[in-house]
């Protein structure tokens, strides 16, 4: 690791002011599972790091006013194990339990996961499907963004260099459903395709709402409101799941990488959107590596 300064702020204002002083050159560090790797591999050489784990109170998990509020420094292990998250948004707890391995989850944070904006990751797509938002702290005040707008492209977010994500907010009650993590090799920790499907049922057994987010195939998770709308008032049958799956497959602009070619990914999107919708409509809740 190259020589660097380490700042240890005790408040968000102090952290943002420090980041502002470096004009985009410094990096914030939470769990470090991604950042330290990049430092070690020489992909980044910032003059300074700003620790976030020295700021108290950023890892709380609570339900406040119809909103599940997850502190940005909550570790993926903490989210996965939280009785509150497991009860209120089981798909999120289960998806966080599938990230990497236990040593990654014990250190990596939910906020760090979003701000790294690594496309080959599980939580971003789940949070996009949940209509989650992030609270952002900066020298110009506090603002809120949908997770869908925070993640812009491969490793790119809408954050200014002196802004920090402080909290992830999931509206409650959340629709129920599943996250399917399709992994192409047994030794692979990362998804080739990650599909979240959430539904609400109408009283007559029809679907009132379906949401589908496809992650890990492009720079940012994909939702298609027009395809989701097909489910509104429809019977939850195979024809519907297939039609939505094909709409997503037609719309994705997949990347080719070691986990799958673009053409292969497009086909797998159709398959796993269909399967995830089928599972969600059948009342399943959770996340599975498949």
């Amino acid at each position, binding site marked *: *690791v*190259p*020589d*660097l*300064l*380490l700042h*240890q702020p005790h408040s968000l204002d102090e952290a943002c002011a420090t980041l502002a002083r470096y004009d985009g050159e410094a990096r914030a560090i939470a769990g*470090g*599972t991604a950042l*330290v*790797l990049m430092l*070690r*591999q020489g992909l980044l050489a910032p003059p300074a*790091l700003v*620790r976030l*784990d020295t700021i108290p109170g950023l890892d709380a998990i609570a339900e406040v006013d119809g909103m599940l509020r997850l502190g940005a420094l909550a570790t993926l*292990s903490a989210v996965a194990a939280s009785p509150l998250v497991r009860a209120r948004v089981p798909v999120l707890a289960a998806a966080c339990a599938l990230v*990497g*391995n*236990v*040593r*990654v989850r*014990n*250190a990596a944070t939910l906020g760090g996961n979003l701000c790294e904006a690594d496309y080959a990751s599980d939580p971003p797509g789940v949070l996009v499907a949940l209509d989650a938002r992030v609270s952002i702290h900066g020298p110009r005040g506090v603002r809120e963004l949908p997770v869908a707008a925070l993640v812009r492209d491969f490793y790119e977010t809408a954050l200014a260099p002196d802004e920090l994500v402080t909290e992830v907010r999931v509206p409650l009650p959340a629709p129920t459903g599943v996250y399917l993590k399709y992994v192409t090799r047994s030794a692979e*920790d990362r998804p080739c395709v990650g599909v979240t499907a959430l539904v609400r049922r109408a009283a007559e057994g029809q679907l009132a709402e379906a949401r589908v987010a496809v992650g890990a195939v492009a720079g940012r998770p994909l939702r298609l409101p027009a395809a989701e709308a097909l489910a509104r008032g429809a019977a939850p049958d195979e024809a519907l799941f297939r039609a939505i799956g094909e709409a997503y497959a037609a719309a994705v602009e997949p990347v080719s990488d070691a986990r799958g070619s673009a053409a292969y990914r497009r086909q797998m999107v159709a398959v796993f959107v269909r399967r995830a919708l089928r599972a969600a409509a059948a009342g399943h809740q959770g996340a599975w590596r498949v």
Partner: protein
Amino acid sequence: MAEKVTVRLKVNGRDYEGTCEPRKLLSDFIRQDLGLTGTHVGCEHGVCGACTILLDGRTVRSCLLFAVQADGAEIMTVEGLAAPDGTLHPIQQAFWDKHGLQCGFCTPGFLMTVYEFVNQVQARNHQPSEEEIREALSGNLCRCTGYVNIVKAVQQACGIPVESPAH
């Protein structure tokens, strides 16, 4: 060079204090500054799990943390497993009994991973399946054994009856 920082932490129940550069990794601090060379450094980029330690009771990879991030923390390394008189910890004994190692380089990381896992399953009074054990071990790489005897060692440590390996 950046100004040195002081790191105070408890390792295996003993207080330590050291000064280091902010960029010093916890794995290097444990080995070089504290002289506890039981924690091994394999891949040095968070893949092999040899550097696994317990930080405030949870396993982490010490090669991906800065030493200063452990300031004020309680750490347990492989040196903290055996009793002061050298009696092996039941997990170490299980690795011994089931030949859960060959060259031994990866073993400290495995032992710490298994320590957390066994504590968790015992707290839940749960008998883990082989699949759960293999899932728990994922992220610790062993290039000698093929994992079969490591899984058996974990089963023994969890109190599950297992046949002994052929000699």
